[in-house]
């Protein structure tokens, strides 16, 4: 099966004002399958956000190839319509909820994308209602977004993307500015979109507990793919994550320390509940 997204040796750099060239991505290659939930983990300035903008052609790589749905995307060979079709297919939700909402009425904002696509009015109406329902914001349709909480605004932004019926949504640090309850709302919405609607999700974050919810974690460090595996495997490599400057869940860190001290405990614990069970059975063993 061809992967939904495939990047081959992608390089990207930008010029600073003083004529210096800064390499942001160096030979990045990865594949993402249709319907997969991938978390991209990395420090600020590691090149994560640049990667996102390459996928929907807001930025163009210096070298390397990117394939969407088996077809190579390239500014040279594609028409403007093709480019916008890619942007429809790969929706994007950004960090600051305030800076991506265009209208002072929630439902009109959600309608913005479909309107740009030239969809007939009745169809837009239906899509907007469905999208708002999907993110649980129907009752706010006629409200003004500026009075809503950060989590609610982000859900509106998500609805605005869903209304364009994308196959993939990239969340570019979409939870970074939210409080814990806002994060929970947004993460629940993301999981539902992925599990129920089969939308491919790329969630860019530096929050490890969010990354732990994904099917796979890609760690970007210094513009390169440093790790790519299931969360259990990535987080168990505590030493490497620490050297990159990322956190691991406390439970994983505890198991890492305990095993280092010589306790015979299982690998790949990233979940508090499983950790508790493992420790309980460890201490119960001799009694049996």
């Amino acid at each position, binding site marked *: 099966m061809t992967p939904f997204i495939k990047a081959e040796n992608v390089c990207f750099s930008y010029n600073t004002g003083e004529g210096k060239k800064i390499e942001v991505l160096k030979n990045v290659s990865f594949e993402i399958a249709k319907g997969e939930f991938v978390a991209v983990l990395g420090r600020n300035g590691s090149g994560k956000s640049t990667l996102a903008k390459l996928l929907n052609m807001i930025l163009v790589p210096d070298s390397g190839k990117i394939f969407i749905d088996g077809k190579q995307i390239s500014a040279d060979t594609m028409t403007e319509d093709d480019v916008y079709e890619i*942007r429809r297919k790969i929706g994007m939700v*950004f960090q600051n909820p*305030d800076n991506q909402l265009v209208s002072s009425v929630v439902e009109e904002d959600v309608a*913005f994308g479909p*309107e*740009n696509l030239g969809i007939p009015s009745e169809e837009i109406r239906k899509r907007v209602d469905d999208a708002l329902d999907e993110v649980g914001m129907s009752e706010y349709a006629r409200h003004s977004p500026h009075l809503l909480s950060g989590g609610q605004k982000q859900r509106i932004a998500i609805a605005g*993307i869903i209304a364009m019926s994308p196959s993939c949504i990239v969340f570019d640090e979409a939870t970074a500015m939210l409080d814990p309850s806002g994060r929970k709302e947004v993460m629940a919405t993301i999981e539902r979109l992925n599990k129920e609607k089969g939308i491919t999700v790329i969630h860019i974050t530096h929050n490890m507990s969010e990354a732990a919810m994904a099917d796979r974690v890609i760690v970007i460090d210094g513009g390169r793919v440093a790790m790519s595996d299931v969360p259990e495997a990535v987080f168990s490599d505590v030493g490497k994550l620490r050297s990159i400057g990322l956190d691991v869940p406390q439970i994983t860190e505890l198991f890492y320390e305990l095993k280092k001290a010589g306790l015979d405990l299982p690998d790949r614990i990233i979940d508090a509940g499983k950790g508790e069970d493992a420790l309980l059975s460890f201490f119960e063993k001799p009694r049996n």
Partner: protein
Amino acid sequence: MMRDITLGQYFPGTSVLHRSDPRMKLILTLIFIVFVFLAKSLWAYVWLFVFTFSLLIVSRLPVKVILKGLKPVLFIIAITVIFNLFLTKGEDLLFECKFIHIYFEGVMFAVYMIIRIVCLILGTSVILTYTTSPVDLTDGIEQLLSPLKKIKIPVHEFAMMMSIALRFIPTLTEETEKIMNAQKARGADLSSGGLIKRAKALIPILIPLFVSSLRRADELATAMECRCYRGGDGRTRMKRLKYSPRDLVLFLVFAAFGTGIILLNIFIPYLVI
């Protein structure tokens, strides 16, 4: 709190005026303004006055609040009245004291001017700004002016800018407040000193505000591109404005109002300016 300022002075409601098409309301506002200036005789002014207050009542807006809103205009009215009262020369001298001469014509002009200014402001705001949400208003302007696109006037872009401005007013107001607080926390003194000192004190607020607006504009532009925005061409709208019978009735009412002004001017030319 600055955040609570009613934006664009819109009062939500369900009156006939609230529910009619914004394009029609724009047209009616124009008609109204024209006829305010066409009134010439006493009875035409009375008719104008009665019509304006009927609009206010029909709109079911809070009359007291609306009349209070006229306060800032009092100054302009006062000046107009003084000028008309003292500087108009006529035949019928009412009052004389040293160099002050007040003629009957002056008093008449003054009263006419009061009616004209009050009706102009009250009427246009009741027809348009008080009863139309800024979003509807922008839509109305865009669709009403859309024929101008044919002669390359960027109507869509203009409307888009307006609606984005509306969207960002509360955000930037909030941001200004935040930056002011942050600088006050560092001891910035915004409320004392002379004009120059105060103007200087604004620099720590204006620069961050400017920088952050640029950043917001940049991010918003990217977000809009990601949502497939590429100008007005090929764009559809979820809401298409539709004229209803209500709008026709309203139009006829205004036509009757205009005709009334003209007829009164011609047939009862009492105290014509």
